[in-house]
């Protein structure tokens, strides 16, 4: 397990909802430092805990409802997001914030979390991104790469500093 994780989340079956996953697909083709792992978290709920546990730094890429123009890119921290206070009805409501909270209770929360959000436009069923959000993908990739080069100076390239985890990174055949 690497100390730095870039995690893309979202549902690729609902076009712009999957922008986080689309960014990860691009990042996987970039030259990444060895202390960085990129993972397509898909529609994961509580499974996110296992991906983020014991990371020194976590960079999340996700669609974000911010009332901005479609394709707008936002740089956020977890405290900028709205927790779900409506009462849980389904395990579907377990998302990023709840997973961060679970990780904190288990004592394995990432030390530092940064979020790149992209305002979606089209959330209809389908695999292709809208033109506005597709245009944002290379911008987010560049922002993440820049963030990684800064972090890489702070975080030693030594995987042994974190507990051994069982999560593995295998590219999914659907990632195309």
């Amino acid at each position, binding site marked *: 397990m690497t100390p730095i994780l870039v995690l893309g989340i*979202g*549902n*690729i079956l*609902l076009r712009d*909802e999957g922008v986080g996953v689309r960014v990860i697909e691009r990042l996987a083709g970039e030259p990444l430092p060895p202390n960085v792992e990129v993972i*397509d*978290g*898909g*529609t*994961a*709920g*509580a*499974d996110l*805990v*296992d991906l983020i546990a014991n990371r020194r730094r976590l960079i999340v890429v*996700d*669609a*974000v*409802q*911010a*009332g*901005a123009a479609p394709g707008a*890119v*936002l*740089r*956020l921290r977890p405290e*900028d*997001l*709205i927790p*779900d206070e*409506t*009462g*849980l*009805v*389904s*395990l*579907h409501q*377990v*998302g*990023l*914030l*709840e997973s961060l*909270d*679970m990780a904190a209770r*288990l004592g394995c929360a990432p030390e530092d979390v940064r979020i*790149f959000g992209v305002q*979606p436009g089209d*959330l209809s*069923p*389908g*695999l292709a991104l809208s033109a506005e959000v597709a245009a944002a993908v290379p911008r987010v990739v560049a922002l993440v790469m820049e963030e990684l080069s800064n972090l890489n100076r702070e975080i030693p390239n030594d995987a042994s500093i974190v507990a051994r*985890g*069982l*999560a*593995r990174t*295998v*590219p*999914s*055949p*659907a990632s195309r």
Partner: protein
Amino acid sequence: MATMKIGPLTRIEGHLDIDADIDILAGSTGGKVVGARSSGTMFRGFEAILKGRDPYDAPHLTQRICGVCPVAHGMASSTALESAFKLPPTDSGRIMRNLILGSNFLQSHILHFYHLAALDYIDTTGILERAPWKPRYVAPDMIRGTTAETLVGHYVQALTARRQAHQMGAIFGGKLPTTPVFVPGGCTAEVTATRIADFGALLSQVASFINNVYVPDVEALASLFPEYKTIGRGCGNLLAYGVFDLDVAGTRKLLARGRYTNGTLDTVDPTKITEYVKYSYYSSGSNLNPANGATTPAARKTGAYSWIKAPRYLSKVHEVGSLARMWINGDYRAGISVMDRQMARALEAKKIAQAMAGWLKQLVPGRSTWRKTPPPVNAVGLGLTEAARGALGHWVRINNSVIDQYQIITPTAWNASPLDDLNQNGAIEQALRGVPVANTAQPIELLRVVHSFDPCLACSVHAIRTRGDEEATNRALLRAAGI
């Protein structure tokens, strides 16, 4: 007697609204539910995405439908393709798929109880006040004091057990969620002695949590809330497709296929399953079997109130889930109620964990785990399995070696369906009818009924949201622009 509308009782944004009409007792704050409506509030058009694609894409794309039970979609899809390809899985593939799906059941059942259901019965004021665990309703009958503290303490243990179950799935599943190893013909993971040992070590810890903490906690809850052994019965009919094949032909299963209709156990003929749409937002035909199903959205349809269709077996409403499986298999027949659903779920976790230890011993390192065949030119396939929360079916038709049609019936379509063309309410709607509510301002009783079904909806729009303040959004935009 006055009628009051409570609703939406449960609001999952973009997912499910449930509201109820309550007859208020004169001079009281409470009453009884006289009617309830369950509405899926979002169109799920995922099946259309599969049309024209390579059949081998189906297990990967359908797993993306749901973040809670992706493994079950992978299983249903692989099974549907195997039936179309006339290609049974390898024995090693069958066992590994059972182990991966079993791990998913265990983590789902544990999380469901400690993260959702138990909190309906515990007043966490002063113990767990942070959202989203802040109690939504506080009722006089709730558990307080040291018992509450003990149960909340078990919550953290449950999170650990859930993680271990997830890690078990990842040992053979590779990447989770959305495992790439589910394919028609078996499972692409390799069996190694290390993997068997790692899996076994985690399984014994999870099994110990289930046997020593989870099952006793549910038993304690059931004894403290005896009235919930009669509340929330619903339609009384149960349906299970069955799961965890014990041979490659799928004839023997750990949890059998069957149904319990009008008090009689019977077999399941998949051609008797149809979906009604009179009250659903679809203009396509009603009462169609999914093999010839159609899903044409009609958002402004008069009289419709849900995006969920109404699946029925021989026109009858059936409940699906752990209780249905355990009942049909003869493992649990104490009753049909809110508490019976919780109890059956816990005992099912125990049964599955025990069986998994046996399956692990059957794996032989080095044996071939899958076989590949080109897709047939024309074929139809059916994949019936179970997600943690109930019966899941995939129907596929292949023309010119690509997917021509794909239809899915999810467990929550059975449980949270609206009225059908015969004006029969869905399973949750029926289970809510007659439920006494002590205080309509705090209708915790209704939430307990809904939670007992472990509803799970299409993982639809789950985009994170900012706090919405324009100034903060502008600052975040500027930060991203490097200004």
